[in-house]
C-alpha cells in the first residue's frame, strides 16, 4: 500500500559540494512501511518556485533498527537544492513506497553478484547490497565516478561487500569507466544490477547481454506523478510502452530495447 507521510529529518549530511545524505523517520515512532531495494519515493518540495511537481528519489537505505529512511541527493536544480538545505526537525511530505524492486536471487548463496553504480545511481545499490548480504549473499560493488571526491558512502558499502571503484581521472581505483574494470574479467558473475547515467547502464547492459549474464537496470525516466496515473514516464519495451514508475524502475535488460 502506498502512503503519504510527513516524515521528519533526523540528519542531513553534506557529503561533498553536490551530494547530501538525508535521514528521515516518522514523527510519532510508527514504523516506516516495508520498502524493497530499487523502490523510490516522491518528495513534495516546499518553497521552490520552480518545483511544481514532486521529485522522485531512490530508497538509499532503510535502517530498521532506527526506523530511518536514507536518501542520497545530488543537487542538480532547485528541487534537490532545497532538499540539501533541510534541517534536522524539518517535516517532509513523502509518497512511498513506489515502483517495483530488484529481483533477489533465492538460491546458491555462492553465486557472484555485481552491483554497479555510477554517480548518484549508487543510491539504490546500498540498500540492495545490504539486503543481499542479509539473505546470505556476498555482493561485490563496482562504483564509478568522475573523481575520488564523487565516490560516496564507501564506508557504508564496505559493510556489505567488497568494493571496486573506477574514476575518470584515476584519482581512486582504476582509471576509466566501470565497464573496463578488471573485476569484470576476473570474476564470473551470474547477475549484474546497475543504476546510473544512461550511457553507463547501456554499456553495462550490452556487456551483460553479450556475456550471458542476467542483468537488471534501474531507470530514471522523468516522472510527473510517480504512481502510474499520468503515463509520462514510459520506456519502450518488448511489450510496448511501459510505465517506469509502476512496472519499473527496475527492468531486466532482456525486456528493454537497448541491446538490440
Amino acid at each position, binding site marked *: 500500500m502506498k502512503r*503519504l507521510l510527513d516524515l521528519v529529518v533526523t540528519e542531513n549530511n553534506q557529503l561533498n559540494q553536490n551530494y547530501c545524505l538525508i535521514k528521515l523517520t516518522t514523527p510519532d515512532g510508527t514504523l516506516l512501511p516495508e520498502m524493497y531495494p530499487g523502490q523510490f519515493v516522491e518528495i513534495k518540495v516546499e518553497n521552490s518556485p520552480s518545483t511544481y511537481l514532486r521529485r522522485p528519489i531512490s530508497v538509499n537505505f532503510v535502517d530498521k533498527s532506527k526506523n530511518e529512511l536514507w536518501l542520497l541527493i545530488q543537487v542538480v536544480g532547485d528541487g534537490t537544492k532545497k532538499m540539501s538545505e533541510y534541517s534536522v526537525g524539518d517535516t517532509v511530505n513523502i509518497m512511498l513506497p513506489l515502483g517495483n524492486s530488484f529481483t533477489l536471487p533465492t538460491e546458491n548463496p555462492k553465486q557472484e553478484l555485481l552491483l554497479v553504480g555510477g554517480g548518484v545511481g549508487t543510491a539504490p545499490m546500498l540498500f540492495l547490497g545490504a539486503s543481499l548480504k542479509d539473505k546470505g549473499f556476498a555482493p561485490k560493488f563496482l562504483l564509478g565516478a568522475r573523481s575520488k571526491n564523487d565516490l560516496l558512502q564507501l564506508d557504508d558499502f564496505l559493510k556489505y561487500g567488497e568494493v571496486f571503484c573506477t574514476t575518470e581521472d584515476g584519482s581512486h581505483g582504476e582509471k576509466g569507466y566501470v565497464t573496463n574494470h578488471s573485476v569484470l574479467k576476473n570474476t564470473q558473475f551470474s547477475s549484474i544490477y546497475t543504476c546510473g547515467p544512461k550511457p553507463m547502464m547501456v554499456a553495462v547492459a550490452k556487456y551483460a547481454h553479450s556475456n550471458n549474464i542476467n542483468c537488471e537496470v534501474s531507470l530514471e525516466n522523468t516522472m510527473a506523478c510517480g504512481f502510474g*496515473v499520468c*503515463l509520462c*514516464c514510459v520506456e519502450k519495451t518488448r511489450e510496448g510502452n511501459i510505465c517506469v514508475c509502476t512496472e519499473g524502475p527496475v527492468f531486466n535488460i532482456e525486456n528493454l530495447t537497448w541491446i538490440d
Partner: protein
Amino acid sequence: MDRLIVNIGDLHLKNPVMTASGTFGYGKEFTDFIDLSRIGGIFVKGTTIRARQGNDYPRMAETPSGMLNAVGLQNKGVDHFVSDIYPSIKDFDTNVIVNVSGSTVEDYVDCAQKLVDLDKIPAIELNISCPNVKEGGMAFGTSACSAAEVTKAVREVWKKTLIVKLSPNVTDITEIAKAVEGEGADAVSLINTLLGMAVDINKRQPVLSTITGGLSGPCVKPVALRMVWQTYNVVKIPIIGMGGISSWQDAIEFILAGSSAIQIGTHNFIDPTISIKVVEGIAAYLDKHNIKSVKELTGSLQV
C-alpha cells in the same frame, strides 16, 4: 451534505468535485490515498476505439507553475475497457465517466456505442480537444462546425448524459460551446490543455518527442476561468470547469465564474488527496457564508 448536491443532465453528483481524465487513471490508483465515495465523480483515462501505444518518450516537461504532457492517449482500447477495467471499477460508489476520443466521427460513435450497455457508466465526455495526437480530436474542437457534427452523431447513439470537452486553443470558445449545445450536449467541460512547447537549450532540441504538448496546472487557471465565464454567459447547459485547480479556493473561483461542477487534473499528481480537501473546503465556505446550496454559487459573480 445535501447542500453539495448538483445535477449535470441526468447525472446526479453528491458534490461538484470530480477528477479529470488522464490524471486519475481508473480511480484504482487512488484508493490507497482517498475514499472514492467522497467525490462526485471520476473521469477515466481517454479511451479510443482501438488500443494506442501513445507517443514516444519524453512525454513530459515541467514549466513555471505547470507541466506539458504529450502522452498521446495511450490506452488499451474500448473493448479492453469493457472487458477488463469496467468490472473492477463498476462498484465504486461514485460516478465513473468515460472520456472518449477519436479521429473520425465514426470512431466516437463506435466507442460510445460500446459503452451504452454499461449500467454503471452514467455519462461520457467527448474529448474533442486533445492537442497531442492527430487523432485526439483537437481538429474537431477547434471548429464549431465539426464540433457540432461529432456531438450530433454521438447524441444519436448515447442517450445518457453527454458532456463535450472543449479545447482552449480557439479564438472564441463560446462559438464551439453554442454549437455543441445546439446539438444536444447536456453539458460542456472546459478546459483541456493549452498547446505549448519547451526547449532544451543544451541539446538544442524540443523537450517533448512530439515537439508540442498540452499545458496544464495552475499556470492555465486564469485562461480557464475566463473561458468558463465567457461560456457561462452564452449557454444554458451546465459547465464543468477545470484548469489549474489546486485548492478549494480555486474551485470556488470556477464555481463563481459559472461552473456547476469542477474537475481536478494535474494537482492529483502532487497531492492525491486534493479532491477530498476541495470537497471539505467548499462545504466550509458554504457554511461560513451561510449559503444553502452550492447551486446558488454557480455564476453568482457580482460584476
